[in-house]
């Protein structure tokens, strides 16, 4: 049977951890939000029906928003859920960064360069998105 290489094992572990961490944060935020008895939780069908109704709930649009809501005492439970979603969205990017390092350490310069170029293009796309 073919065995995974050290690069494959590293990326697999990172994707798994990213997924598990995200689920943990998403669920804990959501459960606390539901237990606190916010009326929007009971109105979820109406809240996601259109954007105007959707604004009844904190929809975070930047990492700064999430950070500020987490800094509140007690922290906004939906900010914990949003943090889980951000972790999930960042997981593939971290996978590419880890691949670049792992290939470099394994002496595979071609693939270290390819992974770095892909990572650079992803970061460029984020910069373009942030710039509007």
């Amino acid at each position, binding site marked *: 049977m*073919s*065995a*995974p*290489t050290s690069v*494959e*094992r590293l*990326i*697999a*572990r990172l*994707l*798994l951890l*990213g*997924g598990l961490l*995200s*689920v943990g944060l*998403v*669920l804990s*935020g*959501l459960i606390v939000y539901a237990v606190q008895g916010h009326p929007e*939780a*009971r*109105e*979820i*069908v109406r*809240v*996601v*029906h*259109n*954007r105007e109704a*959707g604004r009844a*709930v*904190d*929809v*975070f*649009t930047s990492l700064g928003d999430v950070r500020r809501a987490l800094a509140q005492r007690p922290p906004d439970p*939906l900010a914990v*859920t*949003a943090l*889980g*979603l951000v972790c*999930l*969205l*960042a*997981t*593939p*990017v971290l*996978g*590419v960064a880890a691949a670049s390092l792992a290939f470099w350490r394994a002496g595979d310069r*071609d*693939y270290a360069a*390819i*992974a770095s*170029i*892909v990572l650079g*293009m*992803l970061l460029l*796309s984020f910069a*373009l*998105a*942030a710039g509007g």
Partner: protein
Amino acid sequence: MSPLAFVAALFATSVVAGGAGAVLGLGGGILLIPILTLFFGVDLHYAMGASIVSVIATSSGAAAAYLRTSLSNVRIGLFLALATVSGALVGAALAGVVPARVLQLLLGLALAYSTVTTLRQLRVELPEPGGADPLALRFGLEGTYFDAALDRDVKYRASRVALGFGAMAGAGMLSGLLGIGSGAFKVLAMDHFMRLPMKVSTATSNFMIGITSAASAGIYFARGDIHPLLAAPVAVGVLVGAAAGTRLMARLRNSTIRKAFLPVLGWLAVSMILRGLGIGLP
């Protein structure tokens, strides 16, 4: 519908979308967006935001398992990601400049042709080994995986790499231009052009879709399209479904996966042609 029933139905739909996505190498958006908008009455922007979360959740959940069993090929995935991500950047820059409908029509016709050729090789379990492609040799685009359905190791090497790379760049461009996921195009390019085993194609596509979608996820987040009350149950359901889908896929034959993939390809061809002709679909 009561809130609990809504969340339960949403979770169940997401489990199915994640499972199908993991087996077929798709993000699940093709299933999720119409169901969320038509059956659950969700706002289209929120449905698209939930779909991008679903793509990345499917990718993370499925690729983690496929990498451990060597079904996902990291080298092939990263090599082709060069084409898809750069294509997506070019596509995003050209949005509004290039007539999207003409591109949709051309792509729809190409997909219709691919559907017919895929139909002809429906029963093919493993592709015939092609000639030694210089790019495949130079970049090590090959591998071995244990096929549980065939109960043996399967060795493979990519063919017609330049053609596959070009198709991937086109798929990436379209995804940047139209804001659609391109898992089906990735599977098609690897299975059809590069003659990789179907399982390797769908598993490697699962690894790649997370990378290409991450490029546009930031835009959806910044626009406020990722609603936490909707995206959260979707993310959890899709991750659970993807984990189950990877177990199922290992036991399926390559030809079975191709048969399941064919209707998706046919549907995409029809929807692209209709949109190209200006006939709206839900």
